[in-house]
């Protein structure tokens, strides 16, 4: 098959795929709700007949009936339809027909494609299917199909880039067959999970598929624009398998209206108007007749050549960034180097801090986030994998995986949803030999540092030589040069005043000689100097002017972002200066601000407010801090707490005299229905801000913060709704309980095991659905059976006292405040448990 594909590319010959299957099976007795793959065993003659019709029509590729074949639908131990039998019989059926046909028509080339569709489950974190589990499901099917003798793997109708990656990886890991992957775009030109053609092409080519394309969802006409975008973004053959138009259902029957002639006519336009389009076939509603007319229409026509797309693209599950279009910003904040708080967050396993940094960078205008979690005292591979996984669950920006630990690098590249940026390789042979195989396997744009075994050359030519060496090595691995971007290396000018000049000249040389993209860690330039902002902005501006693609900077730095946005505007990258206007209209320069403030005397007032001159409408808010908590002013709370501490107030007094009474006002208001959930939570978050400050203070003075008792909270197995549980957690923490949050979809045994190990005597369980109340009951039973000395309180939308009694819970808490009250009573009754 590989030879056939290469010959087709070389001779510019179209490859024809088969068409739809569903309608044919239905016409031959497939009942609604019946799994089509059961026909492989029960009605093989129907499938053989269809394969024969498609071969007669002129198809080169015939698909096996395995679209939905996986162990979730066909368990291994199913007496009638075990997965191995389903897949093996499917391949055998198609192969038998193909072999017979070729025997009669030796001039024809025909191949059996193992058809692979989506699992039907969305991957975590959006859904619940674990990425590696998805890989394993696909591996099972593909290795069965390969063993049975399929000629290629056709992954199709994929609407989620993460699942697509799982399927391609699986195929690559269990067989050497060619892999073709086609995806389903909606009319808006996006995957259902948000990806666009450019990002999809980058991902698939990075993973090393042999051809990519689009199928299903739309008819050939509606697909035209998408095929165009996909073909322009690709450097490999593109396959186009549309439906016979959009579906129309009448009296329960689905119709596709595009006739074979119209279908072929539009396909011909698609094939002749675009480069790279080599594979033509159909999907839902297309018949052997559609394929036959298509094959005839394309007779004697040559395919357009395969054009190479030279864009440097990184992608995420929902988006992509083209590096060579215009300069971009890589956020540098997720990196412990020189950042005390980030270091502490990593040591404390405080993922929230890391995620917050990422979101802030995104909000401030970063396009890609660098992720470096390297600290000697933590398990870097585990932490990096988690950070990448968590970040991609909450942020749509592509990520730059930054580590020197190759185990960590591979783990992160594997689970990354997209084509990542990789930081970094350099000219050292050992380094290239370690990293390039990973890039070959998973794909990625590689930041390449211009240094090697002999260190950092101090001349432009020296650095360019290393760039050439890196290119040559990438060539050897088959990594396209567009995926290599160079870091010209920034050294401080405080020790070598010519350092910046060499770097800037190297950036220019990289741009002009190679047309390549470049990256710089900009702020290194000013290390050891005063007013680093002045040097950094000037250097950044000069580097951009010399062609710098991506500055790795702090997007929260207003000065640096001002340079960036102004540069875009000045150089014509910002059409009609819209982005610049959007960012700066209505703002004034810092000097002007100061001048105005001095004139109006408002500086003094600010100062007054900061020391707490405000009076609120609640009793407790006679004190500024209490008022701020009641009103939920998070930012103010941190500041006011710091001020109180600075005045030598005992941290515990702050808790008891300010925070707790303020929270009580809000809590009682909530219980009396005068304050509602969002306000309660705003106050809770504000109080949290106070606790953060206090905790830091206590830590530095070596005092342990006082706990009122340990509580486990968890959303039970099968339930992925965790908002209620999260609310309970925040409030319990507010009231100084030590909360162990086990997350959502938590199996009973994990709760039992944690309660025993951590000696927890109060367990809070949450469930949102009637169906998962059963899991709640199972969990309570498991706790009782294991004789865990604990009480269980339950809550959630569908629960009530009656249910709670029925499943053997000790208490039903209708909301978060009640849970707090219950916990208070519980630990009052059992003071021996508090310090357990």
């Amino acid at each position, binding site marked *: 098959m590989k030879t056939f594909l290469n010959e087709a590319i070389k001779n510019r010959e179209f490859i024809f795929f088969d068409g739809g299957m569903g309608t044919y099976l239905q016409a031959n007795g497939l009942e609604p709700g019946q799994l089509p793959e059961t026909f492989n065993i029960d009605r093989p003659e129907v499938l053989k007949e269809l394969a024969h019709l498609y071969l007669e029509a002129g198809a080169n590729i015939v698909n096996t009936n395995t679209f939905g074949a996986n162990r979730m639908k066909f368990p291994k131990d199913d007496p009638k339809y075990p997965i191995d039998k389903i897949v093996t019989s499917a391949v055998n059926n198609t192969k038998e027909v193909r072999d017979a046909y070729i025997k009669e028509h030796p001039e024809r080339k025909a191949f059996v494609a193992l058809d692979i569709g989506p699992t039907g489950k*969305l991957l975590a974190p959006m859904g619940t299917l674990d990425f590696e589990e998805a890989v394993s499901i696909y591996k099972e099917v593909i290795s069965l199909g390969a063993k049975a003798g399929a000629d290629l793997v056709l992954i199709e109708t994929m609407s989620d880039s993460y699942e697509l990656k799982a399927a391609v990886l699986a195929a690559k890991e269990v067989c050497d067959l060619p892999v073709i992957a086609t995806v389903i775009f909606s009319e808006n030109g996006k995957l259902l999970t948000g990806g666009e053609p450019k990002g999809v092409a980058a991902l698939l080519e990075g993973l090393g598929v042999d051809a990519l394309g689009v199928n299903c969802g739309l008819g050939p006409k509606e697909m035209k624009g998408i095929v165009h975008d996909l073909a322009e973004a690709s450097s490999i053959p593109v396959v186009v398998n549309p439906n016979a138009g959009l579906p129309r259902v009448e009296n329960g029957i689905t119709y596709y209206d595009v006739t074979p002639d119209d279908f072929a006519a539009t396909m011909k336009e698609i094939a002749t108007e675009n480069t790279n389009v080599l594979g033509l076939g159909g999907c839902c509603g297309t018949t052997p007749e559609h394929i036959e007319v298509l094959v005839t229409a394309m007779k004697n026509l040559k395919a357009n050549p395969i054009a190479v797309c030279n864009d440097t693209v990184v992608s995420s599950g929902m988006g992509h960034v083209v590096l060579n279009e215009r300069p971009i910003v890589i956020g540098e904040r997720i990196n412990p180097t020189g950042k005390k708080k980030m270091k502490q967050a990593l040591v404390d396993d405080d993922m929230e801090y890391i995620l917050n940094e990422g979101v802030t960078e995104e909000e401030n205008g970063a396009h890609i986030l660098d992720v470096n979690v390297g600290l000697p005292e933590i398990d870097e591979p585990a932490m990096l994998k988690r950070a990448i996984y968590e970040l991609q669950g909450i942020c749509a920006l592509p990520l730059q995986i930054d580590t020197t630990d190759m185990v960590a690098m591979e783990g992160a590249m594997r689970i990354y949803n997209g084509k990542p940026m990789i930081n970094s390789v350099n000219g050292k042979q050992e380094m290239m030999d370690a990293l390039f195989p990973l890039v070959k396997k998973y794909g990625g744009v590689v930041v390449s540092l211009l240094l090697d075994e002999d260190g950092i050359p101090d001349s432009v030519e020296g650095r360019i030589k290393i760039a050439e060496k890196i290119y040559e090595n990438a060539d050897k691995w088959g990594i396209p040069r567009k995926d290599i971007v160079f870091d010209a290396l920034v050294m401080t000018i405080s020790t070598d005043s010519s350092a910046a000049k060499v770097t800037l000249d190297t950036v220019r040389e990289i741009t002009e000689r190679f047309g390549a993209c470049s990256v710089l860690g900009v702020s290194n330039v000013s290390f050891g100097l005063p007013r680093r902002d002045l040097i950094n902005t000037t250097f950044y501006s000069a580097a951009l002017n010399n062609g710098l693609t991506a500055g790795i900077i702090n997007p929260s730095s207003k000065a640096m972002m001002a340079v960036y946005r102004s540069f875009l505007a000045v150089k014509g990258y910002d059409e009609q200066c819209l982005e610049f206007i959007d960012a700066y209209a209505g703002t004034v320069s810092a000097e002007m601000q100061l001048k105005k403030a001095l004139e109006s005397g408002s500086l003094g007032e600010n100062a007054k407010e900061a020391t707490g001159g405000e009076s609120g409408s609640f009793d407790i808010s006679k004190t500024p801090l209490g008022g701020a908590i009641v009103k939920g002013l998070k930012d103010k709370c941190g500041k006011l707490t710091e001020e109180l501490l600075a005045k030598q107030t005992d941290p515990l007094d702050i808790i008891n005299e300010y925070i707790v009474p303020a929270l009580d006002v809000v809590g009682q208001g909530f219980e009396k229905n005068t304050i509602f959930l969002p306000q309660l939570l705003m106050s809770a978050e504000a109080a949290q801000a106070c606790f953060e400050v206090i905790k830091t203070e206590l830590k530095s003075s070596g005092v342990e913060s006082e706990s009122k008792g340990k509580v486990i909270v968890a959303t039970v197995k099968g339930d992925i709704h965790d908002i209620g549980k999260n609310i309970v957690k925040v409030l319990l923490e507010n009231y100084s309980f030590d909360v162990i949050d086990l997350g959502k979809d938590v199996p009973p045994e994990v709760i039992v095991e944690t309660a025993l190990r951590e000696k927890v005597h109060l367990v809070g369980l949450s469930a949102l659905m009637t169906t998962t109340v059963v899991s709640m009951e199972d969990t309570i039973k498991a706790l009782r059976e294991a004789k865990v000395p604990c009480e269980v309180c339950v809550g959630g939308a569908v629960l009530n006292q009656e249910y709670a009694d029925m499943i053997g819970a000790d208490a039903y808490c209708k909301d978060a405040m009640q849970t707090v009250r219950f916990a208070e009573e519980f630990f009052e009754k059992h003071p021996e448990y508090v310090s357990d």
Partner: protein
Amino acid sequence: MTYETERLGKIPFEINRRELYIYAGYRGNATPDEGVLALIDECIEEVKTASEIRGILKWCKITRTLDEKGLPRDDVFSIGDFYVESEALGKNLKGCEDAILVGATLSPSIDLLLHRYAKLQITKSVLMQATAAAYIEAYLDEIQRIVKKRLSPEGLSLRPRFSPGFADFTTEYQKPFLEAIDAGRNLGISLANDSNMMVPSKSVTAVMGICKAGTEAVGAYENI
């Protein structure tokens, strides 16, 4: 009646703030204070920008199963190919010959936001949930208004929407419902493993009975 499937994309509609407040936990006539209102405005903006709202309408004939006397049963019937045994839905559809199966989703990008705030900002997490829910309900309200307008020249109207999870029309029906509207392909909705929860989470399925004008409220919520 022609029984066909219609796909819908973005249509102009206004979110119902009162409904949003109720979803967020406000009772009676209580309204959020300034701080919460500002957050709600942010949420509405974010949902508007991030969502790729879409829906599908499948117009179906209702076929009622006959009882032993040969009379149509109210509680066992098929809406198109979608087989249902439910007293409550049966009551809602009393007198209707046809019904529309409707599905809609805000797309996974909203889940990304929900996921984000669930981890980082609990207040906004609650408000985002409420906003997204109010947003998709408002979308369905608008669809309902449009369909009603279309039906009115024929003297027809719609019963209130009835979703899996109401009374004895349990969430067990979610799976066959999604299959009936081919929601995986059309809307990208699937069920989370071993459950009846939809992914993307901000998705809705509902039955809208087509009834004679003036009988919109017949059997609607009676005795449920």
